């Protein structure tokens, strides 16, 4: 049997943290991209599009992320689509992230006075121009703080990828626990590493929130 020193445990955990970070980044990029498209769809006056977005949000906010991962990983491969744990994790985290971001951004856009839309129409701006030059610049200011705050949820969400066998921080934690039989030490370290990833983002989000509130 191989002996694991404290250094070995920490080194392995830190190595796995890279995958947690990479998965979080991929999910966040995927999630924001999809959420942008969905937000644009929601703002159109097409009732079908808006209903579709509402159903999307309802579906992915109303079901557990773990279940979405199982569906993407075990479900899709049973249907004949080969998908890796990495792919399934990114896919389900993208659904999850985008469903929440659409709702967050909806709130931000709704705080802008309706007169802005009407004024833009009076000035003869098209829908896309209104979005690009009037709404987005203001909405981004409001949306930054809650979006950064939500990125913490994305990082925490990646921990579930361990259940479908993707080797990231939590998975390496359980593997090390099986090898060392020192669950208290291992899971304390795992939790601490997650904390060190998430806490700065939480603080930054709070800071942004304050900054925005002052300038108003």
């Amino acid at each position: 049997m191989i002996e694991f020193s404290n250094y070995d445990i920490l080194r392995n955990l830190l190595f796995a943290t890279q995958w947690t970070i990479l998965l979080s980044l991929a999910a966040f990029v995927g999630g924001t991209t999809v959420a942008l498209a969905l937000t644009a769809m929601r703002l159109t006056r097409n009732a079908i599009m808006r209903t579709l977005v509402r159903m999307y949000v309802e579906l992915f906010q109303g079901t557990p992320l773990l279940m979405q991962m199982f569906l993407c990983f075990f479900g899709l491969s049973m249907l004949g689509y080969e998908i890796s744990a990495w792919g399934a994790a990114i896919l389900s985290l993208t659904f999850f992230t985008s469903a929440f971001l659409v709702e967050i951004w909806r709130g931000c856009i709704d705080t802008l006075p309706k007169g802005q839309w009407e004024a833009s129409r009076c000035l003869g701006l098209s829908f896309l121009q209104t979005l690009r030059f009037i709404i987005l610049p203001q909405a981004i200011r409001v949306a930054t703080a809650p979006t950064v705050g939500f990125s913490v949820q994305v990082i925490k969400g990646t921990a579930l990828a361990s259940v479908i066998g993707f080797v990231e921080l939590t998975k390496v934690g359980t593997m090390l626990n099986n090898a060392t039989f020192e669950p208290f030490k291992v899971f304390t370290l795992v939790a601490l590493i997650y904390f060190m990833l998430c806490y700065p983002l939480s603080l930054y989000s709070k800071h942004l929130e304050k900054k925005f509130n002052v300038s108003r």
Partner: protein
Amino acid sequence: MLYFSDLLQYSDVFFSGLMTTVELTVLTTFLGVALGTTCATLRQYGNLAGQRIVSVYVELIRNTPFIVQLFFIFFGLPAIGIMLSPWEASMIALTINLGAYSTEIIRAGLASISKGQVEAAKVLGLNFRQTLTRVIFIPAFEKIYPALTSQCIIVMLGSAVISQISVQDLTYAANLVQSRNFRAFESYLVTALLYLGLSILLRFAFNALGKRLFAYRSVQ
């Protein structure tokens, strides 16, 4: 092809899993909100030490994944002599998790009560406990009720993870069924829809409850 009929014979497995999830959700909602209320009161009106302790608790829980908290409680605590059954560990983990989030939410509600109300209560001779229960809590909870209830639903969905320490909840049922008949997609899809139904049902229940709890509005 999809074969949902293969799932029918396992309907009792799904049902008992669903019941476990509902049972844990109801229990942890009450315990978690109670914990959150206590911590939020301590954070808002308590002494410095109390405020610090609550802050550390809230930040620690909010910045670590639920699955790690669960593993820490279930696998980690026995190492220092605290043995818990999977069910107990899940209940504690869910309560602590909801407690931390609801502390933040409820504290926002407490902070929104204008100082004048508290001072008026003092002038009228109400003691601190009376001020809390009769003046502060009801309007504070009314303000944050939607946020609090959606957090309860998020925790219910998060409880899917407890199947990993072999609590026989709805997700555990899905895993069991798909390992028996290899209908993974169907099994997980049905389970996802059951969770969706449960979250919609919970939202209706919370809305109905909210209308009754805050009915004093219409009396005025």
